[in-house]
């Protein structure tokens, strides 16, 4: 059930089910203040550091997830519907009109900036931005 554990980034289960080996700590979890696994933790430190941002910007696993969702968004009839589905999937709410507007112009510019497959890549760029939002990172 837990598999060999630890360093396989394709693990799709919630991290609470991971088997953690102390010699093979998961880099992305370390990055987000995963508790030291040898002792119980009364409270957990939370840091905001640049390597976390780099993770959202450049990590292969993050990008692959964004591409995956982008493929679903691409099937929507228009940008507004794609943005709404993206918000519902990632943040569990509908976008505000203001957000719709900012994102629509972003997707438009991004789409034109890619030579091939612009629509899908622009949507993936948008999904990646959603992953980097404070609203996604913290449950308020």
């Amino acid at each position, binding site marked *: 059930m837990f598999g060999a554990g630890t360093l396989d980034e394709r693990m799709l289960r919630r991290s609470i089910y991971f088997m953690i080996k*102390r*010699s093979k*700590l998961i*880099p992305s979890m*370390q*990055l987000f*203040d*995963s508790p*030291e696994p*040898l*002792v119980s933790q009364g*409270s957990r*430190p*939370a*840091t*905001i*550091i*640049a*390597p*976390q*941002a*780099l*993770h*959202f*910007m*450049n*990590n*292969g696993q993050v*990008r692959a997830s964004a591409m995956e969702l982008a493929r679903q968004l691409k099937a929507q009839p228009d940008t507004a519907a794609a943005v709404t589905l993206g918000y519902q999937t990632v*943040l*569990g*709410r509908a976008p*505000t009109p*203001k*957000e719709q507007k*900012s*994102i629509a112009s*972003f997707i438009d*510019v*991004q789409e034109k*900036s*890619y030579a091939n497959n612009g629509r899908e*890549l622009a949507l993936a*760029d*948008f999904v*990646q*931005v959603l992953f*980097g*939002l*404070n*609203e996604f*990172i*913290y*449950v*308020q």
Partner: protein
Amino acid sequence: MNTLNHLNRRQMLQRAGMGIGSLGLASLLQQEGLAAQNPLAAKNPHFKTKAKSVIWLFINGGPSHVDTWDYKPELAKRDGQALEGFDRFTGFFANAVGGLMKSPFEFKPHGQSGKHVSSIFPNLSKHVDKMAFIHSGHTESNNHSPALFAMNCGLPRMGYPCVGSWVTYGLGSESDSLPAFVVMSDPKGRGLPKGHAANWGAGFLPSVYQGTHFRPTGDPIDNLKRPTGMNAEQQRRQLDLLKTLNQQHFEVNPFEESLAARIESFELAYRMQSAAPEALAVDKEPEHIRAMYGLDDDKCKHVAAQCLTARRMVERGVRFIQIYSGGMENQRSWDGHNDIAGNHSQFAGETDKPIAALLQDLSQRGLLDETLVVWGGEFGRLPVAQKSKKPGRDHNPHALTYWMAGGGVKGGVSYGETDEIGHKAAVDKCHVNDLHATILHLLGMDHEKLTYRHNGRDFRLTDVGGEVVKEIIA
């Protein structure tokens, strides 16, 4: 129920507990003095000193003090004699204990201080007048991993914050575009120091203070390259949108104190993408510098690149840099169980020129005063031979030599002594805790005041020990 139906999960949590999670976070951050600001922001030391940064050359595997810096003529006189009363379980190979063994290397006096140095350091020996030697070091374990943990974290067990993490926790970073604490390990495929990342871990300190281990091959830092097919402008627009959306959200949910820090972290990350490769571009150095470090010399070019990188990092405000010489154990590091002559000649050959160049380069740039250079490993080696076709030396936790240079230490001094054969620290003994207390002191920190509350008590790097070795401080 009706009302609840209109609430999504986030709003529900927020209204029900006013964001229990966020309250906990805010109070925790305040308690640590990190509230809504970068935990790596530069902080004032306890008192003013010269050293701002540290370059620690970790001589991995356990360098033999009696074959490097701790000259023992008595060993030559008693070469081959049995050492009476010797506990054959001191090292690892109880059944291979031989007689006392003289150093295979010749020692000659160098510099104004007349320090006797082994012939394996033809370049470093020119800098003895910059160095303060501690000959009376001793540690807690005769085994690599625990001894590495002790030397790095103060205790011979894993899970404690290392010196670099404590220093970064205490002083923050001077750089706004590079990691504060960098670790470089052997790039020749000989493995990692035993205990791996626990040697540069932050333990119970916030993980922001852990060392950034530069990958020995390939990209040195995780996630530094943009996704394939994305250019800088495209990514810039992503960050601009992220900022806009974050700010729009903040107008509706003004409780997010951390937002400014989050936005700044993305900006720093964007800068790091160009700053880190720039700091690592040792091939941009002028020819005479490259030659001085030995960057074109096959024997030592890997350490040369690391030493040169260390200097470039120090110039750019990186706080703590650790370079491991050698990989794992036995012939892959300074762990000279067999053929001590061949082993130490090889690893001294890999490091002598680059480290000497580093001292000279820091010195000529006026950086040596504010950079503490530390040389040493996890334990010393025995004065008796480990029997083998070509004899070696086994582990010795009772004696080890460290030297420091720059950063406010006296040059050309020697502190403490081992006994006449170099078996055990004998005069002015210096425990690992004492060494750590001294390093923190040189950086302007009182090792008894640099604490972190964990599991119900305040922890220190030096646990309940540590005396500053004032004799080596200028």
